[in-house]
């Protein structure tokens, strides 16, 4: 469920094709992933999961896998 939500956020914010393999989605290979979209992704994660994401953490959230790892390290996220 959590992974599906992250996937849906990235599809909406980065305007991805729903069939895009998520393992390969990162700021390095998605041209649209600029600082503004990064801000939207962090906003969406805070909103969907009720989190406060610190600046130091926000800059590490640059790929689908990083985001999943980050959420796994936050037990309050269901």
């Amino acid at each position, binding site marked *: 469920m959590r992974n599906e939500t992250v996937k849906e956020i990235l599809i909406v914010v980065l305007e991805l094709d729903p069939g895009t393999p998520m393992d390969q989605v990162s700021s390095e290979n998605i041209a649209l992933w600029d600082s503004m979209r990064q801000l939207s992704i962090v*906003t969406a994660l805070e909103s*969907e999961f009720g989190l406060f994401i610190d600046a130091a953490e*926000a800059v590490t959230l640059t790929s689908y896998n990083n985001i999943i790892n980050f959420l796994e390290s936050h037990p309050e996220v269901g």
Partner: protein
Amino acid sequence: MGIIALKGLNVMSLSFLEASKIVVADNNLPTEDFVLAASGQTEKLALFIKAASIQQGFNSSYKTLPFNTLQQYVVSPATTDAHHIFLLFPWDVLPDMDWRSGVTTSEINEGAVFQAIDDFIEKLARFSSKSLLYIPAPAAPVTCNYHFSMALVHHLQASFFKAGATVLPADFFSLASYLSSGSPFAGKFLSPLADAVVSALPRHSTAPKKVLVTDFDNVMWRGVVGEDGVDAIQCSNESAGYIHYIYQSYLLKLKSQGVLIAGVTRNDHEDALLPFRQGVTLFKEHDFVSLQASYQSKSAQIKALCSNLNISMDSIVFVDDNLLELEEVRQALPAVECRMFPGRSEDAPGFFAFLQQQFNFIQITNEDRQRTEFYKTRFKATEISYLPGADITDYLRSLEMVLTVTKCDASNYSRPLQLINKANQFNLNGVRVGEDQMRDLIASGAALYSYSLADKFGDHGQICSIIVSEQGVVSHFVISCRVFQRKVEYAVLLLLADAISADTLMFDYYKTDKNIPFQMFISEAGFSLSDDELLLDLEPFVNKNRAYLELFNIDGALLPLSEGS
């Protein structure tokens, strides 16, 4: 849509993905233009503002200011007549409080700081069409004097209140977001913040309300006067009804400010007035501009009130303790502002703050003070014509009601008999039954059925008792006034109809001074009443009302007579 807890209040909140879905859909809604004037980055809010405005029936189109230019904007000549929504933080008034600037080493002049606050608010006055939203976020320390810092924080907030601002929760600010992106808004609260922005548009501004319409039982006093009697109700400052005493004293305050107070109750007229006439209440009968006591729907009574006083629906605030009454009025009269009377004292401060916002008078004139007397001279008591209330069937369905049927024996007579011996209003005949008598009735083949009700908000306990003789005659039938309007009376008779083989149900009916709700039910449900008997022809009754049974999940024995006969 989820619910988030914010300062003790539950606030409806859209998530990012929910907001995205609302915004994607095409619509033909009108567009409203405005300027969102804030010093920080507002891009994070954009999606939520769009979604909130669509939910409120329009598309928003707004301009924003370049980052950190609010101070210049406030002093430069106006370039647009558009409505301005100022979304302000402490550092917009006093830049030294801005976290992004670090802590200033310069000395702070206390007098100059307070003057700067006044000057800033004065500059805002030149924007003719504006709304002020203030977020009292924690600010960077500008002085080592803790007490002065606190005074400054409170002075800022007080100044914005005086200027008519809506002060939002400090939780809407996120320092992490502000430092990393220049956007001061907490991602978790973007939805309620966007709602506050959209609600600040002039289309939502309304004049202060003029009339407070109040229910009586469990609002003006604790208890139900028609059931418990006037001696049992409580509304003094030395009783469990303390909160009702405070409410009545607040009504007197509102009346002194020119607010018209009207009473509306589904009750017997004489019963409803007894507490006032016997001196139990602080608020007196003559303090009301009008009193409507009848068993008609609340919406019909409020309509009659509006017509008599020649006032519009949107000038009314309606207070009741019953969710169903509030929903009925909300559906029939959407312009009326409805509010639940607090069930717990802890919720009272929020309730009174709400009333203060609704009756928000800046100045009070002598005319205001005399308004009740003025309107009373115009008010003509008229009969309320019978108007059916709003159809709240969908709302009833949403309550997920569970009706539990229990066939009682000597081990569990007590509560059902209490109900029979207490209920006055929905009561077949007012005849009371003692435990010994009940034992004899059971021995003669009669059955006592007790019905409990629960819904998604909680358990209402045992709310209906019926005694049926072996011959199928209903000798006792009472329902607690707490669950009127829920169609329980139909459901229990439909269950009885399912359980017996007869074509007709007979009732030992007597008209009493107080069983008017039951008399109304007889006429509404199609009973036939002759001199000595009350009959219900089951086939047409079932055909017409079967759908009411679908409002309930039924739990327990459905066959009242099969076991006893």
